[in-house]
Each structure stands twice: as structure tokens, then as C-alpha cells.
């Protein structure tokens, strides 16, 4: 479990398949597709119906990665994609009970 967490939080999600599972906005639930771009607060997801821009904060995402499906809260990844490597690892180190 720790390898997947490390690999998922400490990298940007460009190229991964993603689905929105929970969101304060009901019309966002169910948006699924490949992440095309990422900013500090949003994910740009390419769905069948076109490009959708979804905020990260307050949403929960299902991510398909290394033949596993992981549910991650968007609050953990509100960083710029180039910052994600460093800040993601620091976040994991600070969390109690997680060994990197």
C-alpha cells in the first residue's frame, strides 16, 4: 500500500485514468477519463463528451494505477504538478504511521 501511495501522491496525474466519486457539485460525480493537464487547484480530464475541468479541493477521485484502483481525496494533491514530487513526499513523511 505504501508503494502505491508514494507513487500516486508524489507525482502528477497526467496520463492516468480518473473518475470523480464524490463532489459538493452533483453534476461532477461520474466524470471519468484520462487526465490531460494539471494545475495547482484543478485537473483537466478528457472525457467522451469533451474536456472537463474539475477542481481538486473537496472532491474524491478514483485512480487506476498499476493495475490497482485507489480512492484519494483531492485535498492531498492541491499542489502544482512540478511541486508534487517534493511536497507529496514531505506530506507522506509527516503523516504518522506511513513509511516512505
Amino acid at each position: 500500500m505504501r508503494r502505491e501511495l508514494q507513487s500516486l501522491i508524489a507525482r502528477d496525474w497526467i496520463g492516468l485514468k480518473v473518475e470523480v466519486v464524490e463532489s459538493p457539485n452533483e453534476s461532477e460525480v461520474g466524470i471519468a477519463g484520462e487526465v490531460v493537464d494539471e494545475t495547482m487547484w484543478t485537473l483537466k480530464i478528457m472525457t467522451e463528451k469533451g474536456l472537463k475541468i474539475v477542481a481538486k479541493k473537496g472532491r474524491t477521485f478514483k485512480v487506476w494505477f498499476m493495475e490497482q484502483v485507489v480512492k484519494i481525496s483531492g485535498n492531498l494533491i492541491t499542489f502544482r504538478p512540478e511541486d508534487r514530487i517534493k511536497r507529496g513526499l514531505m506530506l507522506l513523511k509527516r503523516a504518522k504511521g506511513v513509511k516512505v
Partner: protein
Amino acid sequence: MVLKRDKELERKIARERIDELMKRSQIYKYTSYELAKRYVELAKKISMKYRVRMSREQKRSFCKKCMYPYRADRMRVRIKKRRVIVTCLNCKHSRRFQLKPKTSNIV
């Protein structure tokens, strides 16, 4: 005691991300101009931030001025006086590469 950064691990992840982003920019260069540019820019930012060098092929695969990967129908390659001159036809920025003299096998 302040938490220490694991710089080796960061550099390892950065190398993987740079390779993957450059590959994606080559795939998207015919379909989306903005995305291909964005992936090259991101790869460069990651390389600068974590002090990881790109390979020579990666560095030479895009225009340094407009950050768009070179494509066969948007570049001009000329050879003059033992130099290769590559011009990007998007922004007209050109750059030169030195050619090393080939050592022959006949001794």
C-alpha cells in the same frame, strides 16, 4: 528536528516523469499544439527544480524558444561547414550542432 528531504528519491521520480512527459509530447505534437508545448514546459520545469539533466536527444528534440517539439513538416535542417543548422518554422529560431569528424576504420 526538521524533516529531511529524500533528494535521491525525488530525483528518481523526476527522471521518470521527465521521460514520460517528453514521450507524451512526441505523441501529442500532431494532435494538440498546446498540450505538446505544455508537456515540454513541464519537463523542463521538473528538470530545473530537481536538478536532473535531460538526455541529449531529449534536449535537442524541441525548440528552445517556443518550447514546441520539432516535427518533420515544421523544421528546416541544413548542413553547412560541418554544422547542422535546425530552424523551427513556428518561431524562426535556429540553432546549430557541431558534427564530430568520423574516425575511419581503416588503419
